């Protein structure tokens, strides 16, 4: 890997029933020099999807732009918004192809989405007065640079992620409120700052819920 700070950028994602919270460390630099401390790594690839990319600087922007444009094309072709799982499998496919190419994308990602119900399933539910799963709700996928994908309730990337994962293992509950999630996120970030030798600077935080994507004050 040409990226000497592989693993030094922390990403944290937490998906609960009503919302998805994603946080990324703001540091962006080269070797010992840090260019920026407020780089926004939480790329909005659609109005209900965030792809957080960590790893090579150029690759993360190039890859997220590439994904966003392909999703927009797919939306135009299909005449409706791409679903969360659809985009996740697309991104996985691109990463899996990339790893065996001449110049692989060196990005580890977290994809968070909050999907509206699929119209046909919603209509089926309304007509039959049932409450079956209709494709709506929050999703979080862990995608690494090789193209392995896991759909999990909470996920992290980077060295700092190990500590954050431990805290989330202890405190996470699927039906917690946004307030509780942000409290847990604060705990995770405090632990990352305490235990990782490199300065983690600001953390950019975004929330996706039924209102869309909101950027919160940096932690």
């Amino acid at each position, binding site marked *: 890997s040409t990226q000497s700070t592989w693993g030094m950028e922390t990403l944290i994602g937490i998906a609960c029933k009503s919302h998805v919270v994603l946080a990324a460390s703001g540091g962006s630099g080269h070797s010992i020099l840090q260019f920026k401390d407020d780089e926004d790594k939480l790329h909005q690839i659609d109005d209900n999807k965030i792809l957080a990319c960590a790893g090579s600087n150029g690759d993360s922007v190039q890859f997220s732009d590439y994904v966003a444009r392909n999703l927009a094309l797919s939306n135009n072709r299909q005449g409706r918004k791409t679903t969360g799982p659809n985009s996740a499998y697309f991104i*996985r496919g691109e*990463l899996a192809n990339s790893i065996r190419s001449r110049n692989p994308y060196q990005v580890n990602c977290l994809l968070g989405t909050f999907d509206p119900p699929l119209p046909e399933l919603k209509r089926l539910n309304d007509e039959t007065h049932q409450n079956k799963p209709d494709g709506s709700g929050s999703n979080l996928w*862990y995608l*690494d640079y090789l193209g*392995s*994908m896991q759909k999990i309730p909470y996920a992290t990337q980077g060295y700092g992620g190990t500590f954050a994962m431990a805290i989330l293992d202890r405190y996470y509950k699927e039906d917690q409120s946004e307030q509780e999630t942000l409290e847990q996120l604060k705990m995770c970030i405090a632990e990352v700052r305490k235990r990782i030798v490199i300065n983690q600077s600001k953390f950019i935080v975004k929330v996706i819920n039924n209102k869309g994507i909101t950027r919160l004050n940096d932690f």
Partner: protein
Amino acid sequence: INAEYMGHKISDKVYVGLAGLATDNQTVYERIKFRSSLYKLREERDLSPKALASMISHMLYERRFGPWFTEPIIAGLDESNNPYVCAMDLLGADCIPGNFVVTGTCSESLYGCCESFWRPDLEPDELFETISQALLSALDRDCLAGWGATVVIITKDKSVTREIKCRQD
């Protein structure tokens, strides 16, 4: 990262399991699913385990000089409901022993366990006990494998999936 594994179902009577690099497991499974769905649409019947094994073997050998890092096993009942198990290496060299096949990080331990516990003509419930004990014994000694286990018993009427509790380390 995750404790959920789906003993990948191809049809009611045929399951495939993939061990190795996670990304290649997922890619190869997607390709197998694609090919077997296409087969089902064209032939209007399910793939037999023997045909599936042959298909996967070719799929893996296609990549002889840049292989998928995955070692599959195929298990199922053929048209006459006879059991069939097959294991393959990453290049598609298959092996059909007739009693049991193993794959994964603790495959050597699994060979030992299965050799001790397996007997011919086991009933479904006995087989479930046998395979669970063999799996658990091997898992507990392997630092990389574990964090839960799923067992699928395939009989001519149905296939039953059960999760076994095991050490969470």
